[in-house]
Protein backbone atom coordinates (compact mmCIF):
# COMPACT_ATOMS: atom_id res chain seq x y z
CA UNK A 1 0.00 0.00 0.00
CA UNK A 2 1.19 3.44 -0.95
CA UNK A 3 2.02 5.46 2.17
CA UNK A 4 0.43 8.45 0.59
CA UNK A 5 -3.05 6.89 0.72
CA UNK A 6 -3.86 9.47 3.42
CA UNK A 7 -3.57 12.21 0.82
CA UNK A 8 -6.55 10.69 -0.98
CA UNK A 9 -8.86 12.12 1.66
CA UNK A 10 -8.09 15.64 0.58
CA UNK A 11 -11.01 17.55 -0.79
CA UNK A 12 -11.28 20.95 -2.46
CA UNK A 13 -13.19 23.57 -0.47
CA UNK A 14 -16.71 24.40 -1.61
CA UNK A 15 -16.47 26.93 -4.46
CA UNK A 16 -19.11 29.20 -2.93
CA UNK A 17 -17.22 29.28 0.40
CA UNK A 18 -13.90 29.93 -1.34
CA UNK A 19 -15.36 32.73 -3.41
CA UNK A 20 -17.20 34.36 -0.52
CA UNK A 21 -14.07 34.38 1.64
CA UNK A 22 -11.98 35.73 -1.22
CA UNK A 23 -14.44 38.56 -1.84
CA UNK A 24 -14.47 39.41 1.85
CA UNK A 25 -10.69 39.61 2.02
CA UNK A 26 -10.27 41.34 -1.26
CA UNK A 27 -12.92 44.04 -0.85
CA UNK A 28 -11.60 47.26 -2.43
CA UNK A 29 -11.77 49.17 0.85
CA UNK A 30 -9.27 46.79 2.42
CA UNK A 31 -6.81 46.84 -0.46
CA UNK A 32 -5.86 50.45 0.06
CA UNK A 33 -3.43 51.27 2.78
CA UNK A 34 -4.79 53.59 5.44
CA UNK A 35 -2.26 56.21 4.53
CA UNK A 36 -3.44 56.33 0.93
CA UNK A 37 -7.04 56.36 2.07
CA UNK A 38 -6.45 59.35 4.35
CA UNK A 39 -4.80 61.18 1.48
CA UNK A 40 -7.74 60.45 -0.79
CA UNK A 41 -10.29 61.67 1.69
CA UNK A 42 -8.36 64.84 2.43
CA UNK A 43 -8.66 65.76 -1.24
CA UNK A 44 -12.41 65.57 -1.03
CA UNK A 45 -13.99 68.03 1.38
CA UNK A 46 -17.56 67.48 0.21
CA UNK A 47 -18.61 65.57 3.28
CA UNK A 48 -17.13 68.17 5.59
CA UNK A 49 -19.12 70.96 3.90
CA UNK A 50 -22.34 68.99 4.28
CA UNK A 51 -21.65 68.44 7.97
CA UNK A 52 -21.08 72.16 8.40
CA UNK A 53 -24.68 72.74 7.28
CA UNK A 54 -25.69 71.48 10.71
CA UNK A 55 -25.99 74.38 13.13
CA UNK A 56 -24.80 72.31 16.03
CA UNK A 57 -21.53 71.38 14.32
CA UNK A 58 -20.93 75.02 13.42
CA UNK A 59 -21.33 76.06 17.03
CA UNK A 60 -18.90 73.42 18.21
CA UNK A 61 -16.30 74.42 15.64
CA UNK A 62 -16.47 78.03 16.74
CA UNK A 63 -15.99 76.98 20.35
CA UNK A 64 -13.02 74.77 19.50
CA UNK A 65 -11.41 77.50 17.38
CA UNK A 66 -11.65 79.93 20.27
CA UNK A 67 -10.16 77.45 22.65
CA UNK A 68 -7.35 76.40 20.34
CA UNK A 69 -6.27 79.87 19.28
CA UNK A 70 -6.84 81.64 22.59
CA UNK A 71 -3.59 82.09 24.49
CA UNK A 72 -5.29 81.76 27.89
CA UNK A 73 -6.72 78.40 26.84
CA UNK A 74 -3.31 77.11 25.90
CA UNK A 75 -1.76 78.51 29.00
CA UNK A 76 -3.51 76.07 31.32
CA UNK A 77 -0.85 74.22 33.18
CA UNK A 78 -1.24 70.51 32.73
CA UNK A 79 0.35 67.33 33.87
CA UNK A 80 0.24 64.18 31.84
CA UNK A 81 -1.28 61.54 34.08
CA UNK A 82 -1.65 58.67 31.64
CA UNK A 83 -1.07 57.67 28.06
CA UNK A 84 -2.37 55.26 25.48
CA UNK A 85 -0.27 55.27 22.35
CA UNK A 86 -0.38 58.81 20.97
CA UNK A 87 -3.19 59.91 23.30
CA UNK A 88 -2.06 61.73 26.40
CA UNK A 89 -4.47 62.12 29.30
CA UNK A 90 -3.82 65.31 31.26
CA UNK A 91 -5.28 66.83 34.41
CA UNK A 92 -5.89 70.19 32.76
CA UNK A 93 -9.46 71.52 33.01
CA UNK A 94 -11.76 69.74 30.60
CA UNK A 95 -12.72 71.47 27.38
CA UNK A 96 -16.15 72.08 28.87
CA UNK A 97 -14.64 73.79 31.92
CA UNK A 98 -12.31 75.84 29.75
CA UNK A 99 -15.29 76.94 27.68
CA UNK A 100 -17.35 77.84 30.76
CA UNK A 101 -14.47 79.89 32.16
CA UNK A 102 -14.18 81.87 28.98
CA UNK A 103 -17.93 82.41 28.91
CA UNK A 104 -17.85 83.77 32.43
CA UNK A 105 -14.91 86.02 31.59
CA UNK A 106 -16.79 87.41 28.61
CA UNK A 107 -14.18 86.18 26.19
CA UNK A 108 -16.60 84.40 23.87
CA UNK A 109 -18.78 86.01 21.18
CA UNK A 110 -22.43 86.18 22.16
CA UNK A 111 -25.44 86.29 19.90
CA UNK A 112 -27.23 89.54 19.09
CA UNK A 113 -30.84 89.16 20.27
CA UNK A 114 -31.98 91.62 17.59
CA UNK A 115 -30.31 89.90 14.69
CA UNK A 116 -32.28 87.85 12.23
CA UNK A 117 -31.78 84.18 13.05
CA UNK A 118 -29.81 82.39 10.40
CA UNK A 119 -31.81 79.56 8.97
CA UNK A 120 -29.69 76.45 8.73
CA UNK A 121 -31.22 73.43 7.15
CA UNK A 122 -31.31 70.52 9.57
CA UNK A 123 -29.66 67.38 8.27
CA UNK A 124 -30.76 64.04 9.73
CA UNK A 125 -27.91 62.03 11.22
CA UNK A 126 -26.19 59.64 8.88
CA UNK A 127 -26.90 55.98 9.50
CA UNK A 128 -24.53 53.80 7.55
CA UNK A 129 -24.36 50.05 7.75
CA UNK A 130 -21.08 48.59 8.98
CA UNK A 131 -20.27 47.54 5.41
CA UNK A 132 -20.98 51.03 4.05
CA UNK A 133 -18.92 52.63 6.79
CA UNK A 134 -16.06 50.25 6.09
CA UNK A 135 -16.23 51.00 2.39
CA UNK A 136 -16.11 54.75 2.96
CA UNK A 137 -13.53 54.64 5.72
CA UNK A 138 -11.21 52.24 3.94
CA UNK A 139 -10.77 49.87 6.84
CA UNK A 140 -12.59 47.17 8.78
CA UNK A 141 -15.15 48.77 11.05
CA UNK A 142 -15.82 47.41 14.52
CA UNK A 143 -19.38 47.04 15.73
CA UNK A 144 -20.73 46.53 19.23
CA UNK A 145 -22.53 43.25 19.61
CA UNK A 146 -23.59 43.30 23.26
CA UNK A 147 -25.71 46.45 23.62
CA UNK A 148 -28.31 46.76 26.40
CA UNK A 149 -31.84 46.25 25.09
CA UNK A 150 -33.02 49.79 25.78
CA UNK A 151 -30.47 51.30 23.36
CA UNK A 152 -31.31 51.92 19.70
CA UNK A 153 -28.80 52.70 16.98
CA UNK A 154 -29.52 56.17 15.60
CA UNK A 155 -26.42 57.11 13.66
CA UNK A 156 -23.20 55.81 12.16
CA UNK A 157 -21.04 58.13 10.13
CA UNK A 158 -17.53 58.89 8.99
CA UNK A 159 -15.53 61.97 9.88
CA UNK A 160 -12.96 62.47 7.15
CA UNK A 161 -9.51 63.90 7.81
CA UNK A 162 -8.63 67.58 7.51
CA UNK A 163 -5.45 69.56 7.92
CA UNK A 164 -5.92 69.98 11.69
CA UNK A 165 -6.97 66.45 12.54
CA UNK A 166 -5.36 63.90 10.30
CA UNK A 167 -7.69 61.09 11.22
CA UNK A 168 -10.47 59.02 9.84
CA UNK A 169 -13.10 58.42 12.47
CA UNK A 170 -16.12 56.15 12.38
CA UNK A 171 -18.62 57.08 15.02
CA UNK A 172 -21.85 55.31 15.97
CA UNK A 173 -24.47 56.46 18.46
CA UNK A 174 -27.08 54.45 20.29
CA UNK A 175 -29.84 56.29 22.15
CA UNK A 176 -31.74 55.25 25.26
CA UNK A 177 -34.18 57.12 27.50
CA UNK A 178 -31.27 57.65 29.88
CA UNK A 179 -28.95 59.10 27.27
CA UNK A 180 -26.64 58.22 24.39
CA UNK A 181 -23.88 55.68 24.01
CA UNK A 182 -21.22 56.71 21.51
CA UNK A 183 -18.63 54.34 20.06
CA UNK A 184 -15.85 55.70 17.89
CA UNK A 185 -13.01 54.04 16.00
CA UNK A 186 -10.22 56.31 14.86
CA UNK A 187 -7.14 55.83 12.76
CA UNK A 188 -4.43 58.49 12.63
CA UNK A 189 -2.17 59.41 9.74
CA UNK A 190 1.30 57.94 10.07
CA UNK A 191 2.82 61.37 10.65
CA UNK A 192 0.14 62.66 12.99
CA UNK A 193 1.46 64.01 16.27
CA UNK A 194 0.28 63.27 19.80
CA UNK A 195 -3.13 64.40 20.98
CA UNK A 196 -4.35 65.24 24.44
CA UNK A 197 -7.52 64.71 26.40
CA UNK A 198 -7.82 66.95 29.47
CA UNK A 199 -9.92 65.25 32.15
CA UNK A 200 -9.75 67.82 34.94
CA UNK A 201 -10.49 66.13 38.24
CA UNK A 202 -12.23 63.10 36.82
CA UNK A 203 -10.71 59.94 38.27
CA UNK A 204 -9.04 57.59 35.83
CA UNK A 205 -8.18 53.93 36.14
CA UNK A 206 -6.27 51.48 34.01
CA UNK A 207 -8.41 48.53 32.96
CA UNK A 208 -8.14 45.54 30.70
CA UNK A 209 -10.39 45.75 27.66
CA UNK A 210 -10.29 43.64 24.50
CA UNK A 211 -7.18 41.99 25.87
CA UNK A 212 -5.20 45.23 25.99
CA UNK A 213 -4.66 47.98 28.54
CA UNK A 214 -7.28 50.72 28.44
CA UNK A 215 -8.28 53.76 30.42
CA UNK A 216 -11.53 54.24 32.36
CA UNK A 217 -12.55 57.83 33.01
CA UNK A 218 -15.48 58.42 35.29
CA UNK A 219 -17.66 61.51 35.31
CA UNK A 220 -15.81 63.48 32.64
CA UNK A 221 -17.29 66.96 32.45
CA UNK A 222 -18.92 67.76 29.11
CA UNK A 223 -21.03 70.54 27.70
CA UNK A 224 -23.43 69.79 24.92
CA UNK A 225 -24.98 73.07 23.89
CA UNK A 226 -25.23 76.73 24.53
CA UNK A 227 -28.65 78.25 25.08
CA UNK A 228 -29.04 81.91 25.95
CA UNK A 229 -25.29 81.83 26.52
CA UNK A 230 -25.72 79.24 29.21
CA UNK A 231 -23.90 75.93 29.39
CA UNK A 232 -25.74 72.75 30.18
CA UNK A 233 -23.36 70.63 32.25
CA UNK A 234 -23.21 66.99 31.33
CA UNK A 235 -21.05 64.17 32.51
CA UNK A 236 -19.90 61.02 30.79
CA UNK A 237 -18.05 57.81 31.53
CA UNK A 238 -15.39 56.86 29.01
CA UNK A 239 -13.48 53.76 28.07
CA UNK A 240 -10.50 54.30 25.77
CA UNK A 241 -8.21 51.66 24.30
CA UNK A 242 -6.03 51.04 21.29
CA UNK A 243 -5.96 47.85 19.30
CA UNK A 244 -5.13 46.72 15.77
CA UNK A 245 -3.88 50.21 14.95
CA UNK A 246 -7.11 51.94 15.98
CA UNK A 247 -8.07 54.13 18.91
CA UNK A 248 -11.46 53.20 20.36
CA UNK A 249 -13.65 55.39 22.56
CA UNK A 250 -16.80 54.22 24.25
CA UNK A 251 -18.67 57.07 25.89
CA UNK A 252 -21.82 56.82 27.95
CA UNK A 253 -23.73 59.86 29.07
CA UNK A 254 -26.22 57.66 30.89
CA UNK A 255 -23.71 56.81 33.59
CA UNK A 256 -23.28 53.14 32.74
CA UNK A 257 -21.02 51.45 35.26
CA UNK A 258 -17.49 50.32 34.48
CA UNK A 259 -18.60 46.68 34.44
CA UNK A 260 -21.43 47.46 32.02
CA UNK A 261 -19.16 49.50 29.78
CA UNK A 262 -16.51 46.78 29.78
CA UNK A 263 -19.09 44.20 28.74
CA UNK A 264 -20.16 46.39 25.86
CA UNK A 265 -16.59 47.27 24.88
CA UNK A 266 -15.44 43.66 24.96
CA UNK A 267 -18.18 42.79 22.50
CA UNK A 268 -16.67 45.08 19.83
CA UNK A 269 -15.85 42.97 16.81
CA UNK A 270 -14.84 43.75 13.24
Amino acid at each position, binding site marked *: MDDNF*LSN*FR*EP*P*RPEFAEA*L*YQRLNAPSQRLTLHKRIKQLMESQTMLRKRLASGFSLTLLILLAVLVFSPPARAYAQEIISRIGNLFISDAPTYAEQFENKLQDGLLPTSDPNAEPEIIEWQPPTLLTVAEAASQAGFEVYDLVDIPAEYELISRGIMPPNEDERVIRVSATWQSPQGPLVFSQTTWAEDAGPHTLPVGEAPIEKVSVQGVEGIWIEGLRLSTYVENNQVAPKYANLLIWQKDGFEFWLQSSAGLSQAEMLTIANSAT*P
Partner: protein
Amino acid sequence: MATQTTPWRKALAEASAAEFEDLYREQMPRIYNFFRYRFGNNALAEDLTATTFEKAWRNRHQYRHDLSAFTTWLFTIAQRVAIDHYRRPQREVALDQALDLAAPGNPEEALQKQNDLQQLNALLSQLSARERELVALKYGAGLTNRAIAKLSGLSESNVAVILHRTLKTLRKAWERSHG
Protein backbone atom coordinates in the same frame (compact mmCIF):
# COMPACT_ATOMS: atom_id res chain seq x y z
CA MET B 1 4.15 13.71 -2.99
CA ALA B 2 4.22 16.97 -1.05
CA THR B 3 3.73 20.08 -3.19
CA GLN B 4 6.22 22.91 -3.30
CA THR B 5 5.08 26.41 -2.45
CA THR B 6 5.81 29.32 -4.73
CA PRO B 7 8.47 31.38 -2.99
CA TRP B 8 6.91 34.60 -1.69
CA ARG B 9 9.29 37.48 -1.51
CA LYS B 10 7.22 40.61 -1.58
CA ALA B 11 5.70 42.10 1.54
CA LEU B 12 2.15 40.88 1.63
CA ALA B 13 0.74 44.36 2.02
CA GLU B 14 2.23 45.38 -1.34
CA ALA B 15 0.89 42.39 -3.25
CA SER B 16 -1.02 43.26 -6.35
CA ALA B 17 -4.55 41.99 -6.77
CA ALA B 18 -3.37 39.24 -9.13
CA GLU B 19 -0.59 38.17 -6.78
CA PHE B 20 -2.97 38.13 -3.83
CA GLU B 21 -5.40 35.98 -5.80
CA ASP B 22 -2.62 33.54 -6.72
CA LEU B 23 -1.59 33.37 -3.11
CA TYR B 24 -5.11 32.79 -1.93
CA ARG B 25 -5.92 30.13 -4.53
CA GLU B 26 -2.73 28.25 -3.71
CA GLN B 27 -2.90 28.33 0.06
CA MET B 28 -6.59 28.26 0.92
CA PRO B 29 -7.22 24.61 -0.01
CA ARG B 30 -4.16 23.59 2.00
CA ILE B 31 -5.30 25.46 5.10
CA TYR B 32 -8.80 24.04 4.63
CA ASN B 33 -7.57 20.45 4.39
CA PHE B 34 -5.24 20.98 7.33
CA PHE B 35 -8.29 21.77 9.46
CA ARG B 36 -10.30 18.92 7.92
CA TYR B 37 -7.64 16.41 8.85
CA ARG B 38 -7.16 18.06 12.21
CA PHE B 39 -10.79 18.13 13.31
CA GLY B 40 -12.70 15.88 10.91
CA ASN B 41 -15.50 18.36 10.31
CA ASN B 42 -15.96 20.24 7.03
CA ALA B 43 -18.07 23.07 8.43
CA LEU B 44 -15.62 23.64 11.25
CA ALA B 45 -12.76 23.51 8.77
CA GLU B 46 -14.41 26.28 6.73
CA ASP B 47 -14.92 28.35 9.85
CA LEU B 48 -11.32 28.00 11.00
CA THR B 49 -10.02 28.59 7.49
CA ALA B 50 -11.92 31.87 7.29
CA THR B 51 -10.59 32.86 10.72
CA THR B 52 -7.03 32.06 9.67
CA PHE B 53 -7.17 34.14 6.52
CA GLU B 54 -8.91 37.02 8.24
CA LYS B 55 -6.19 37.07 10.90
CA ALA B 56 -3.48 36.80 8.26
CA TRP B 57 -4.98 39.65 6.27
CA ARG B 58 -5.45 41.81 9.36
CA ASN B 59 -1.84 41.25 10.44
CA ARG B 60 -0.34 41.32 6.97
CA HIS B 61 1.82 44.31 7.90
CA GLN B 62 3.61 42.06 10.39
CA TYR B 63 4.74 39.58 7.76
CA ARG B 64 8.47 39.79 7.17
CA HIS B 65 9.55 37.76 4.18
CA ASP B 66 13.14 37.89 5.37
CA LEU B 67 12.21 36.13 8.60
CA SER B 68 10.06 33.25 7.44
CA ALA B 69 8.54 31.69 4.38
CA PHE B 70 5.00 32.78 3.77
CA THR B 71 3.75 29.21 4.24
CA THR B 72 5.37 28.99 7.65
CA TRP B 73 3.86 32.31 8.68
CA LEU B 74 0.40 31.39 7.45
CA PHE B 75 0.41 27.93 9.02
CA THR B 76 1.65 29.35 12.30
CA ILE B 77 -1.50 31.43 12.34
CA ALA B 78 -3.54 28.31 11.46
CA GLN B 79 -1.96 26.38 14.33
CA ARG B 80 -2.86 29.14 16.77
CA VAL B 81 -6.40 29.18 15.47
CA ALA B 82 -6.54 25.42 16.06
CA ILE B 83 -5.23 25.84 19.61
CA ASP B 84 -7.76 28.58 20.31
CA HIS B 85 -10.49 26.29 19.10
CA TYR B 86 -9.28 23.53 21.41
CA ARG B 87 -9.34 25.87 24.37
CA ARG B 88 -12.94 26.85 23.83
CA PRO B 89 -15.43 24.82 25.90
CA GLN B 90 -16.49 22.03 23.57
CA ARG B 91 -19.58 19.95 23.64
CA GLU B 92 -18.56 16.31 23.42
CA VAL B 93 -19.80 14.94 20.13
CA ALA B 94 -19.55 11.36 19.00
CA LEU B 95 -17.48 10.91 15.88
CA ASP B 96 -20.40 9.86 13.74
CA GLN B 97 -22.34 12.95 14.81
CA ALA B 98 -19.43 15.22 13.97
CA LEU B 99 -19.99 14.75 10.27
CA ASP B 100 -21.60 17.66 8.55
CA LEU B 101 -23.69 17.45 5.44
CA ALA B 102 -22.05 18.38 2.19
CA ALA B 103 -23.49 21.20 0.12
CA PRO B 104 -26.81 20.37 -1.52
CA GLY B 105 -26.23 18.63 -4.80
CA ASN B 106 -25.67 15.07 -5.88
CA PRO B 107 -26.83 12.92 -2.93
CA GLU B 108 -24.58 10.03 -3.95
CA GLU B 109 -21.61 12.34 -4.05
CA ALA B 110 -22.58 13.82 -0.69
CA LEU B 111 -22.83 10.35 0.81
CA GLN B 112 -19.47 9.36 -0.62
CA LYS B 113 -17.85 12.45 0.89
CA GLN B 114 -19.46 11.69 4.20
CA ASN B 115 -18.10 8.15 4.10
CA ASP B 116 -14.63 9.40 3.23
CA LEU B 117 -14.58 11.83 6.12
CA GLN B 118 -15.88 9.11 8.43
CA GLN B 119 -13.05 6.80 7.37
CA LEU B 120 -10.50 9.55 7.82
CA ASN B 121 -11.79 10.32 11.30
CA ALA B 122 -11.81 6.66 12.23
CA LEU B 123 -8.15 6.43 11.29
CA LEU B 124 -6.93 9.66 12.82
CA SER B 125 -8.88 9.38 16.07
CA GLN B 126 -6.41 6.74 17.24
CA LEU B 127 -3.53 9.19 17.09
CA SER B 128 -2.17 11.54 19.72
CA ALA B 129 -2.74 15.28 19.22
CA ARG B 130 0.83 15.76 17.99
CA GLU B 131 0.66 12.83 15.57
CA ARG B 132 -2.65 14.07 14.21
CA GLU B 133 -1.22 17.56 13.80
CA LEU B 134 1.78 16.24 11.83
CA VAL B 135 -0.46 14.07 9.65
CA ALA B 136 -2.73 17.05 9.00
CA LEU B 137 0.26 19.17 7.96
CA LYS B 138 1.81 16.46 5.81
CA TYR B 139 -1.16 14.80 4.12
CA GLY B 140 -3.86 17.41 4.57
CA ALA B 141 -1.89 20.55 3.80
CA GLY B 142 0.76 18.84 1.65
CA LEU B 143 3.72 20.41 3.43
CA THR B 144 7.26 19.04 3.24
CA ASN B 145 8.96 17.57 6.30
CA ARG B 146 11.23 20.59 6.36
CA ALA B 147 8.29 23.01 6.51
CA ILE B 148 6.63 20.87 9.18
CA ALA B 149 9.84 20.88 11.20
CA LYS B 150 9.88 24.71 11.21
CA LEU B 151 6.28 24.84 12.34
CA SER B 152 6.52 22.19 15.01
CA GLY B 153 9.94 23.00 16.41
CA LEU B 154 11.05 19.41 15.79
CA SER B 155 14.04 18.47 13.71
CA GLU B 156 13.38 17.34 10.18
CA SER B 157 14.53 13.81 10.99
CA ASN B 158 12.23 13.70 14.04
CA VAL B 159 9.31 14.66 11.86
CA ALA B 160 10.18 11.90 9.40
CA VAL B 161 10.46 9.31 12.17
CA ILE B 162 7.17 10.29 13.83
CA LEU B 163 5.34 10.26 10.52
CA HIS B 164 6.86 6.91 9.58
CA ARG B 165 5.74 5.31 12.85
CA THR B 166 2.34 6.95 12.65
CA LEU B 167 1.82 5.58 9.17
CA LYS B 168 2.69 2.07 10.35
CA THR B 169 -0.02 2.37 13.01
CA LEU B 170 -2.54 3.70 10.54
CA ARG B 171 -1.69 1.09 7.93
CA LYS B 172 -2.34 -1.73 10.42
CA ALA B 173 -5.62 -0.14 11.46
CA TRP B 174 -6.63 0.29 7.82
CA GLU B 175 -5.82 -3.35 6.97
CA ARG B 176 -7.74 -4.58 10.02
CA SER B 177 -10.85 -2.63 9.06
CA HIS B 178 -10.68 -3.58 5.38
CA GLY B 179 -9.92 -7.26 5.87
